[in-house]
């Protein structure tokens, strides 16, 4: 009886996962091996052209690699920015710690789109930044490369995903016992050695999980590129969006989705193995 009620409790969750996770995945998997007519109506014949196209047409594999490079840049930048920030809040702040913590989470209270638009206002030709620089005489002509370029897209992504990286790192810092740091200093290590040999290995799981999160989120992002990107900016998700929307080629869009999914799964697997290895040390 007890066992049965346990299953009953878990049933809604299983149903949810089946309806909204398993079924959609099955759908894109089957879609990806079908063909279309010229206007995108799906034709039900077994066909692997979509996969062949992804690995032969540079549009698809180049964009995929480029998106990965962007994702790595975003993840690394988030980590580099998060380390001192999280360190500061964890160790240097003594009063009102929760206030500082809230400041990091605060941007979540606003919609992503609103924040992306805010960057348009800041970075535009007549935006806040350019107007200020022009006024103070630093530049004579407004900088145009800072908006509608890869720069603005990466800036926005780093800004959006920073809290995702900062929070796990902060949590790892919090868990470090102060006595370990003191012991290291007692044994004659300077601050840098202490950080390198004691603190960093201890926060590594947090760094990895945060970095992976930023990496995966960037891989799936299309909004920043379409709002702030220039004529050159193209993320793999923009292609997926095009394929499902304007190009109306669902099989190819699904195939790109499947490839991306497999890559992300691999990435998560590697990252969790690495994380486990370091946790046991």
């Amino acid at each position: 009886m007890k066992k049965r009620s346990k299953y009953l409790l878990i049933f809604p969750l299983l149903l949810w996962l089946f309806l909204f996770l398993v079924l959609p995945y099955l759908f894109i998997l089957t879609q990806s091996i079908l063909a279309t007519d010229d206007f995108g109506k799906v034709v039900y014949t077994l066909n692997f052209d979509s996969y062949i196209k992804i690995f032969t047409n540079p549009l698809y594999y180049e964009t995929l690699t480029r998106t990965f490079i962007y994702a790595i840049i975003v993840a690394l930048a988030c980590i580099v920015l998060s380390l001192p920030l999280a360190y500061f809040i964890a160790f240097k702040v003594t009063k009102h710690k929760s206030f500082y913590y809230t400041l990091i989470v605060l941007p979540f209270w606003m919609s992503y789109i609103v924040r992306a638009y805010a960057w348009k206002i800041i970075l535009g030709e007549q935006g806040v930044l350019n107007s200020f620089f022009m006024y103070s005489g630093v530049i004579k002509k407004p900088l145009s490369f800072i908006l509608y370029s890869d720069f603005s897209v990466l800036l926005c992504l780093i800004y959006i995903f920073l809290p995702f990286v900062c929070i796990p790192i902060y949590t790892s810092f919090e868990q470090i016992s102060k006595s370990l740091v003191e012991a290291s200093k007692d044994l004659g290590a300077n601050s840098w050695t202490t950080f390198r040999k004691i603190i960093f290995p201890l926060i590594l799981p947090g760094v990895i999980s945060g970095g992976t999160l930023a990496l995966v989120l960037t891989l799936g992002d299309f909004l920043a590129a379409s709002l702030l990107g220039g004529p050159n900016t193209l993320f793999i998700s923009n292609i997926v969006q095009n394929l499902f929307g304007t190009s109306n080629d669902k099989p190819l869009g699904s195939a790109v989705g499947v490839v991306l999914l497999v890559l992300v799964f691999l990435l998560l697997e590697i990252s969790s193995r690495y994380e486990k290895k370091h946790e046991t040390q």
Partner: protein
Amino acid sequence: MKKIALSVLVIAGLFTSCGKKTEEAKAETIDLEALKGSTLNILAWEGYADASFTKAFEEKYGVTVKGTYFGSSDELVSKLQSGGGASYDVITPSSDVAGYIVSSDLVEPLATDELTAWATLSPVLKGMKDVQKDGKTYGMPFTWGPDYLIYNADVIKETPTSWNLFFDPKYKGKIAMYDDISSIYLAAQLLGYDKTDQSVLYNLTEEQLAACKAKLVELKPQVRKNWASAGELDNLFKNKEVVAAVGWPLTPANLNKQGMNIKAVIPSEGATGWIDRLMIVKGAKNKQLAQLWLEYVSQPAVMAQIAEFTQYYVSNPAANALLTPETQKLMDVASMDSMFKTLNFWQPVKNRKRYNEIWSEVKNQ
């Protein structure tokens, strides 16, 4: 009893035979009370569901008009194919996909004889075969217009005569293109492919597509942003991000109302254009209301309001006389027939998928 019934029939016949009265007779067949409180869902190009002309309709029938805008023809088709009838009643496809939508059975045939203004609509537009199938008509002519070269006349003092203005080093990073396969038509026009045959633009060979791609890649350093909606283009001009772009009359119409000095021309290489129709989506939930919308929109007074707002040419010629003299001058209504002849109107692209891929490849270069 029979006599009464007969005389009613005769009277009804008299009513239907004379124009204005028809509407009242028909109004009896549509239960207007039942329609009250319902919502008409329009999936349309930007500007086609503006409050300046939907409000009177809403008040007249006690309904709500809800407009959802699409940014490209492909977006419309993909929305329709994934079960559009459940969400939308009326759509406004352009000439490049209208035929496909009709032949794919995504729309209802129109009861044109019930539209009081049908007889007065432009015969040329009505006669177009792409929205006719098995003797039935599936689209009501609505508007048409060019893909203009739009420029900020405060910056570009001389009226541009060629699309090559886009390649002028002076305007590097100051150009906006439309994020759509119609950019390929533009490149093909620049290369002169449609000199003898307009339809070439829509049937480009692989080599021609490659040449268009090269042209568009060459243009890329000049481009600030590929706009995805008319609203986005408006903002690019307003924030001084761009000084010239390809766009629709809606953009200068909007911006000049806000005090800007935006002008539009058709360069010597020519321009493409589009013809938009109103259609009723197959299985639409509010079919009767959709029919009433078509009836309402086709009236000269409403068409004139639409032209005032969008500065698009409308299908009811009687509307032109109702425009303010200012708009008549801005739209150059007097010479609209000659413009109609010069434009290369969007046609169905058989290899649409390939065109889309080329356009993405341009961005990837």
